[in-house]
C-alpha cells in the first residue's frame, strides 16, 4: 500500500510539473494592471479588438473588457497560447511600424483595418511573420474577442452584460419565468 501511495504522489507531481512547464511565462507581478500582457501589448490588443467589434451606438470590444478577458484566459485555459500572443502582438506592431512608422494603436481606423485584412489573409508584411502564420494568430484574436464580448461576464469580459443587452436578451437572466405555460396548449 505504501508503494502505491508513493506512486500516486509521483503521478501527481508529474502532472503538476507538466502544468507548470506548460504555463511557460509568468502570470501576474509584472508591474502592470494585467496578469500576462504588457502595457504595449494590451494597447495593441484593445485596438485590434475594437476593429473586430467596433464601438458604434453600442459599446465595442475594449469597453466590454475583451482585453481583460483574454489576459485572464492566457493565465488559465489559454496558457498554451501565451507565446502566440506575445509573438503575434509584437509582430502586429512591427508590421505597423514598417508600413506607417507608428504603433498599431496609433494608426487611423482605416489603416488598422487594412493591416488587419492583410493579417487575416496571411499577407501581413514584416520578417517576423515568416515564423508564424498571421492568419492563424488573427483567427485566435477574432474568436477570443467574440468569446470575451458575447460570453458570460464571469470570465472578465461582456462588462455589465453589454452584448446581451444589445441583443435584447434579459440580463441578468430570469429563470423559471416561463414555468406557468401549460404544456397542454399544443399546436
Amino acid at each position: 500500500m505504501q508503494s502505491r501511495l508513493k506512486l500516486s504522489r509521483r503521478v501527481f507531481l508529474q502532472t503538476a510539473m507538466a502544468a507548470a512547464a506548460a504555463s511557460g511565462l509568468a502570470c501576474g507581478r509584472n508591474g502592470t494592471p494585467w496578469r500576462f500582457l504588457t502595457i504595449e501589448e494590451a494597447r495593441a490588443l484593445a485596438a485590434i479588438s475594437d476593429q473586430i467589434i467596433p464601438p458604434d451606438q453600442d459599446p465595442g470590444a475594449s469597453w466590454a473588457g475583451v482585453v481583460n478577458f483574454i489576459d485572464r484566459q492566457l493565465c488559465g485555459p489559454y496558457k498554451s497560447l501565451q507565446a502566440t500572443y506575445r509573438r503575434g502582438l509584437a509582430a502586429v506592431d512591427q508590421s505597423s511600424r514598417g508600413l506607417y512608422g507608428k504603433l498599431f494603436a496609433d494608426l487611423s481606423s482605416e489603416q488598422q483595418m487594412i493591416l488587419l485584412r492583410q493579417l487575416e489573409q496571411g499577407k501581413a508584411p514584416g520578417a517576423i511573420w515568416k515564423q508564424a502564420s498571421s492568419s492563424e494568430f488573427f483567427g485566435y484574436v477574432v474568436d477570443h474577442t467574440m468569446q470575451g464580448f458575447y460570453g458570460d461576464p464571469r470570465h472578465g469580459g461582456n462588462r455589465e452584460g453589454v452584448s446581451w443587452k444589445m441583443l435584447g436578451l434579459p440580463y441578468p437572466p430570469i429563470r423559471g419565468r416561463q414555468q406557468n405555460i401549460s404544456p397542454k396548449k399544443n399546436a
Partner: protein
Amino acid sequence: MALKHVNAVVVGSGAGGGIVAKELSEAGLSVVLLERGKWFTSFDDRKDDLRNQRTSVLGPSFGPDERNPRVYADSSGSEHVVPSNHWAYSNNAACVGGGTLSYGAMAWRFMEQDFRLRSSYGAVEGSTLDDWPISYADLEPFYEKAEWEIGVSGDDSGNVFRAPRRRPLPMPPLSPNRSFQMLKPAAERLGLHPFHIPMLRNSVPYNGRGGCMRCRWCVGYACEVSAKCGTQNTVIPRAIETGNCELRAECIAKEVITNERGRVTGVAYFDAQGRLQEQTADLVVVSCSAVESPRLLLNSKSRMFPNGLGNRYDWVGRNLQGHSYTGASGLFEQEIYDDLGPGASIAICDFNHGNPGFVAGGLLANEFLRSPYQVASAAAEVGIPRWGSAHKDFMRRYFKRNMTVMGPMQEMPVFESRVQVDPKVKDAWGIPVARISGRHHPNDLLGTEFMAGKAEAWLKEAGASKTFRLHWTFLDIPSGGQHQAGTCRMGNDPNTSVVDKYCRVHDMDNLYVIDGSVHVNNGGFNPVLTIMAIAYHASDNLVKTWKGTHGRG
C-alpha cells in the same frame, strides 16, 4: 486490504451502466458501480456559455479533465495529443450519469429498417454494414421501459414513419415555441410529416421531479431543476436505494482482470485517492461508451488474451462511428427567438429511409436555443464576415431572427475507423490512452448534401429570406463525437463481432459490454434511447440467466 467480493462490477455510470446497475441490484445482485468522474448536483453547474459540454472553449464543465488526453492520428499519419475540448477527442462527459446529465435529451427509437440495413439496402462497398442480431420487435418492450422509467415527453403520433409502439409516451410535449409554430405549417405545405420531438425531459411533474421551466441553458448543461431525466436522477438513485449497489465515483478503471482459465474475476482501478484497488466480482459489465470501452478491453491484456479481451479477431475498437450532422440555416425578417428552452421542438422523419442515390438518411429537427457566442462564431456559415461592423450589425439584426434545421445522418461503418490504445502516451494514472484514427464513408457525404437541401427547402417554406446549407462532413477525418458508437459490435458470428445479442463478449461467459459500442449502425437518430433499451434488454437476460454467485473464479 481486499475489497468485499460482489456479484457484479459495472464500469461507467452513463446511459448504459446506470440502467444495468439498477436492474441487477433490484434483482438482488450485489453491485459496485465505478465512475471515473464526480457526482455533480444541479448546484455545481454554473450556466456558463463558454464552459459546458456543448461549447467547451474554456473547457468542459463535466470533464474529462487534462489528466486524460487522447491521441488523434490524422489522414497523413501525423499524431496529435489532444485535450478533451478538441474536436477529434470525441468527448463524452465524465461524471455520474455520463452524457445523460447534460445532453439535449432527444429520445428516439430507431426504425425497423435501422436494424436490418444490410438486408434493406444490400452490401455497401467499403463498409462493414450488417444486420443486427436483434430486431426492433425484440427491443420494443425495452424502449417502452426506458420511456416510462427514465421519463419521456413528446408526441410522435404525427410521425407516420415511426415503428409500431404499444404504449404512448408518458408525458405530453412542452408547449410549442415560435420556431415550432413556423416550421409545422411549412412542413405540412411541403407534404412532410412534422411532430413533437420525444425528449427525456419532464414536461409535467413526473417520477418525483418537477417539469421543465423552459430556461435557455439546456443542451450542454445540467438541469437546474432536475427536469431533464438522466440516469443520475432516475435509475442510479433507485439502484442505491435497494441497498445492493455501491456507487464509487472518481475511480479510474485500469483493466479487467482474468484468471488462468480465461474467466473474468474483477476490475483493477485507481480510487479517488489514486490507490490501485482490485474489486473482484462474478461478472463485469463495461459501459464506458464507444471510445473508453474498447480502450479498457484492449488494455486488459494477459497471457491468455495478448490482444486484449474480446479481440481474438481484431474487431474491438473497429467501426467507430457517430453522426454526420447536416442541415441548413435561415435568416428571417421576423423575430423568432423567444427565449423558450430547450428550443428543439419539431422534427420530421420523412428522409430517414428510401432516399434516392444513397443508403439510409436521418431525421431533421430545429436546433436548440443558441447562445450569443454560438451565433457569433457561426456567422461565416451564413455568409457574414467574421468580424467588423458587418458582423456586429448581423448580430444585432439576426440574433433573434435566425433558425437552423439539422439532423444526424446515419453513417456507414468503416472498418478502418477505429479506437486503439496508444503505444506511447499514457494518462495521469499511467494507463495507455485511446488513439483515434480513420475516415468517413463516401455515402455520408451524399446523404448530408441531400438532407441539407431538404432542410433548406423547409426553412424557405417557413419564410426564410436567405438560407445557407451547412457543410460539416469531411471524408478524411474519423467520426465519433458524443454520439460515438460501433466499436464493440453486436453479432451472431464471433469472427465479425465482439458481443452476442445480449451484449456478452464472445468466448467469455462473464464479461459484458453494454453501451453504444455494441451498435451495428447508429441510426439516423440521437442514439441514447437505443442505448437505454439495449441496456434493459441485456440486463433482462442477465437477470434471467443468473444462477447465483460463481465464487471467486
